[in-house]
């Protein structure tokens, strides 16, 4: 019994290391609700959705945020899904904004609420290739509002074109820069390709 009690104390101490804590951070506030199947999906409603994710942070492999305009866990180590912080990553934000299914063969419209923790099956390179039933490649010169530019490492959606020929892009960019609307020159950059979502209704 004395050994058990001594080891119980040691076990409590061990449970306090970062690795055990890391699995219970922002994601503990998220849910696994089913998405709402929609018959409509407009580009400006998608702008509303992506715009509301601004300031909510960035999480590698993530797809869950609230609407308090604060990144609850900023400056996590990059490229670690296990940090479970707030925000989507670039492809997670795009997947949810584009109302896609986790089943890559389905091209219907699935509305995921902000606190629904889902990243989706695509990374930036998959989007760039136009993989999945709802996605396709588009000519960059004709890419418009809520189409996207994707490279092998990143994807951002066109919020609106700009006078000087660049674009305001809504994107989950990085841990330090978070999710926001930034002016970018992806359109002319050959590292990026144009990507679109089938099924806009207005």
């Amino acid at each position, binding site marked *: 019994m004395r050994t058990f009690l*001594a080891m119980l104390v040691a*076990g409590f101490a061990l449970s306090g290391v970062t690795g055990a804590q890391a699995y219970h951070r922002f994601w503990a506030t998220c849910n696994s609700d089913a998405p709402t199947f929609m018959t409509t999906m407009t580009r*400006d409603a998608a702008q*509303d959705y992506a715009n509301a994710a601004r300031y909510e942070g960035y999480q590698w492999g993530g797809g869950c945020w609230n*609407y308090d305009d604060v990144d609850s866990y900023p400056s996590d180590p990059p490229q670690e899904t296990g940090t479970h912080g707030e925000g989507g990553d670039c492809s997670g934000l795009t997947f949810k904004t584009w109302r896609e299914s986790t089943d890559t063969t389905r091209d219907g419209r699935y509305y995921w609420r*902000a606190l629904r923790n889902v990243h989706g099956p695509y990374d930036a390179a998959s989007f760039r290739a136009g993989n999945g039933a709802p996605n396709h490649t588009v000519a960059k010169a004709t890419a418009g509002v809520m189409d996207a530019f994707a490279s092998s490492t990143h994807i951002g959606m066109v919020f609106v074109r700009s*006078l000087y*020929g660049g674009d305001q892009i809504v994107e989950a960019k990085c841990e*330090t820069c978070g999710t926001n609307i930034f002016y970018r020159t992806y359109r002319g950059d050959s590292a990026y390709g144009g990507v679109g979502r089938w099924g806009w209704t207005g």
Partner: protein
Amino acid sequence: MRRPRFRSLAGGAAGIAAGVIGGVLLASVSAAVPTPVAAAPPLIDATHVPPALTTPGAAVRLRYGLVCTPREDGLPCDGSGVVYLRAGQSGPFRSYTLRRGEESRDGRYYLDVPPSLADSPDGFSYYAILRDDATGATTTVPSGGADAPQVSLPLQHPTTIALGSHVFGDVRTPDARAAEAAWGSGRDDVGLAGSRELGYTGPSSFDVEPDGTVDILDSVNGRLVRASHAHREHVPLDGTLELADLAAEPDGSFDVLDEHATLRSFRSDGTSKWAQKLADRTWAKLEHGPSVLQEPSEQWMPVAEDGAPLTRNEQKRGAHTANHGLIVDRVGEGELLLAEVRGNAPVRGWRITSETPLGEVQLAEPHGNGAVVVTRAYTAGRDEFVVLVLESRGLVQRFSVASDSWTETAPLARFRLARGALYRLRTTPAGASVDRFDLEVPQ
């Protein structure tokens, strides 16, 4: 020493297991308490691409996008709006109600400008107020409203320049290397960060001082590198520098504009003078003054005057469309309109067309008795910068510059025009360099 019995070994293992499980459960319970979400004010924003330069006789449609708090039913916001228009740039505005269309690709809310205003020889000026009818929230575009409205001018008799189809691979070799550094954190280096998966960042911007000293914003190492023929100096800087833009001021101070839309002014030794938030939410380019091309207004706004920062309202009131006396309007897939203005009137203009799509305009500034423009020609798989030296009669000089870059920079920070030459920031797997291209001077 007595050997441990099986029962004590088992008891110890069970104790550790129970302790770890108990600790994790307690931690999860404490962390699982939801973060209270503050009652945020209703979101509202707008998008608009102004027709800064128009073709006389052509119909003009103003389009706006309205962005609101996401609705629970997933539909777009139910909005409305009014545009305040006038001929020229003085006098009272008249209100016109925006119409709501079925399609939002180019902006759901629109107004066809009455021909009497669209055809005005002095152009027209305007601003709009859009409203989310569900919450009553409103937003004004441009943010200066009646104090600094959007200006649209007719491009009368522009000099037309047809670039044809861009020939890739024929890039010009620089005339000189003004500065270079290898990757690293040493005295002669500039910093590189990131990974193949995330992409790399390095020096995000640069500038050239009147004496030829090249200033490189060494974002990763948190410093400014000042390189001249004689020596190299480092100025340590605080704050976020990743993807920030840089402007060196004539008095030796310099300005840094960061990704969070804060402009910070530093003395020449790197000590902070002041910091100021931009009036608008996003920016595209920083210029001396300092002056910033801000979004969504699409206007240049002064951020300081006589060395002191301007409030956000003062920035809005000081907004204007022209920069260096030039108005830039990249339209369609491969067309660039450019006008030189004096006061509020266009003096001369250029209409540049390209069969190869054109990307962003990196730089447009007066040069001699003409202007220099740097834009980007691109296809699905290739891109190059195109440098055009313009005069009233047409093209004085044209050449291509390689656009590949190992790292990401601030968006419109790849070129600077200084001392009559064009400077370019370039990064490769080996390091960063600033190259100089000498330009012909329009007479």
